[in-house]
């Protein structure tokens, strides 16, 4: 290649012809791409500390999320199963105590300052029996007080329901008995009997929790290649190695593509490590509670991979583009962190706005990924467009970024502007 060019150069020198060689500047040269890619990967994998930190944290996300979620779910289920109720002054209501005992409830005395604690969300709902309960009960005018805070969305919300149902059940039994005493069937009290059938599959029950897995997965993908993307662009400027690099007779496009592919490899490696972390946890660590919420089949892993593998390179290219405006690593880090904040908050905003799944969301980076990943987890129906549209968007982002980067790298203020 080189010898060819020099002979060409010599003939040109002799004949004084002025053939523009500009076309070569835009050409795709696979050898250049490969040389740049190889160098960047080697260079960045040698940054052991950063690489280890990124790789270890990517693998660790799966186990941490799954084990954390498992404890959270089991604490909810425990409360539902444990059949514990807090009743103050149960001694004044022996009839109720008897009913609860027959229903297998364990009656517990609340803490003395339970009213405050409930307000702070630190205590389950409490049933308060007045001192004159038995006297009034005989006359049929007894009342009880139910203390709770329904603004709390945690497990204590369940304790309210349990107490209500217990008291209602007690009412029904007592009034039934009283009617029978008057010769009327107790069944008259219930015009309609409620048969409860919970349609929510275990997967749908944990919908809120399912937000976390895709979200964290995407965020790890975004943060993973940040350091590499910045070092390859702003780092190159800061070191003063960009100017000599561009003195080589190589096509800028090829150079940028080589760099971008290195970022892409890094990002995709992180995604694979991340999925491996989930797989290893689900396979080797017994988490029975999680199994009822998340079971990942090989098809679901594949779906995750298809969504995430193009996403990280696309975001990586955008990070490279933004970082190029930074004269130093630090400056670029500030710029890129804005992107990071915006992108990572898109799904949170969507969640608070309670957006329903819609096709337009597929066109929004991050939102589309979130939607599809959540659907994959829930085991919901997916069509080809769910994969193709986000893939197309990712491709468009990468193409745009590479084109912009190629232009930027030719600008004097970028090549020479050093801090």
């Amino acid at each position, binding site marked *: 290649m080189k010898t060819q060019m020099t002979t060409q150069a010599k003939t040109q020198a002799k004949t*004084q012809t002025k053939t*523009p060689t500009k076309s070569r500047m835009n050409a795709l040269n696979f050898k250049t791409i490969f*040389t740049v890619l190889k160098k960047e990967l080697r260079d960045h994998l040698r940054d052991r500390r950063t690489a280890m930190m990124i790789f270890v944290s990517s693998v660790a996300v799966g186990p941490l999320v799954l084990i954390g979620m498992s404890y959270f779910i089991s604490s909810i289920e425990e409360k539902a199963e444990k059949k514990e109720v807090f009743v103050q002054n149960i001694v004044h209501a022996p009839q109720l105590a008897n009913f609860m005992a027959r229903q297998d409830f364990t009656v517990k005395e609340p803490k003395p300052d339970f009213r405050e604690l409930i307000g702070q969300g630190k205590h389950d709902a409490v049933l308060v029996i007045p001192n004159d309960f038995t006297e009034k009960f005989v006359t049929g005018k007894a009342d009880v007080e139910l203390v709770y805070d329904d603004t709390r969305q945690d497990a204590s919300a369940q304790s309210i329901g349990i107490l209500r149902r217990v008291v209602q059940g007690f009412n029904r039994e007592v009034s039934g008995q009283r009617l029978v005493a008057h010769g009327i069937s107790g069944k008259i009290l219930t015009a309609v009997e409620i048969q409860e059938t919970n349609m929510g599959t275990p997967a749908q029950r944990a919908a809120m929790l399912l937000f976390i897995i895709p979200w964290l997965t995407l965020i790890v993908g975004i943060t993973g290649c940040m350091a590499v993307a910045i070092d390859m662009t702003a780092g190159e400027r800061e*070191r*003063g190695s960009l100017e000599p690099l561009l003195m080589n*007779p190589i096509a800028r496009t090829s150079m940028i593509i080589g760099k971008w592919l290195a970022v892409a490899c890094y990002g995709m490696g992180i995604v694979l490590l991340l999925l491996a972390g989930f797989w290893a946890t689900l396979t080797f660590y017994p988490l029975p509670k999680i199994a009822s919420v998340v079971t990942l089949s090989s098809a679901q892993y594949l779906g995750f991979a298809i969504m995430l593998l193009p996403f990280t390179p696309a975001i990586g290219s955008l990070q490279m583009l933004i970082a190029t405006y930074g004269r130093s690593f630090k400056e670029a880090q500030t710029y890129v962190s804005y992107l990071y904040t915006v992108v990572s908050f898109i799904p949170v905003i969507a969640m608070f706005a309670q957006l329903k799944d819609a096709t337009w969301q597929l066109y929004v980076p991050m939102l589309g990924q979130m939607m599809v990943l959540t659907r994959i987890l829930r085991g919901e129906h997916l069509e080809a467009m769910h994969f193709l549209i986000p893939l197309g968007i990712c491709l468009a982002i990468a193409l745009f970024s590479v084109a912009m980067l190629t232009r930027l790298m030719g600008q004097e203020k970028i090549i020479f502007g050093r801090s």
Partner: protein
Amino acid sequence: MIEVRDLKKQFGNVTAVNGVTFTAKSGAITGLLGPNGAGKTTTIRMIGTLVGIGIGGGSVSVNGLDVATNADAVRQTSGLLTDARGLYTRMTAHENIRYYADLRGIDPAKSEATIARYVGWLDMKDILDRRTDGFSQGEKMKVAIVRALVHEPSHVILDEPTNGLDVMTTRALRELVKRLKAEGRTVMFSSHIMQEVAALCDEIIIISKGRVTAQGTTNELLSMSGKDNLEDAFVALAEIDGEHAHQTQQEAALK
């Protein structure tokens, strides 16, 4: 041969280069001398295809090739060292140099031979396989120079190469420049130190405020300025304005 004709460059409101004309002959060392901010670096970057030449900005030809239209061909035949000499610190000196050789598509056996030759000249065997992190100024410079020469360019352009270097490294560099000349290459190098330029160069071009104010051998410059030492001559020649410079040059030519 490098031919610079009426070169002009403007950055915003600042005129960096304002009509520079000179010729650097093949097989000779041409020194570009000038105070800080005279336009040396911009001129060199324009010769090196890093800064574009706008319309009406004059012309530069390297080895007969117009820089504006044959940028890649010029890059093939010239080796440029500017003040941006950044190395990749996680890579060894050798890897840094080889990266450029590979980018230029040079046959590995050939590039290894070239590297070995320069490593011998610059006495850098000990540092070759060390990572460049923590290299001294001189060590960094040596790596950057070999990196710029790894494709054996026929035209070598060095921008203030001795800046911040100790005496030993400076000497090694001067030897290198002389050897390059002996091999028949066109060498251009800029400096703001008169003595250094005088000791090495066959021809000196003094640039000031974006213009060539004087041009000639050391003796010619001395007689042109009427001073008897180099430093005074440089100061005197750097301070004359463009019009005057033109006249002195013509006078010198008549003599």
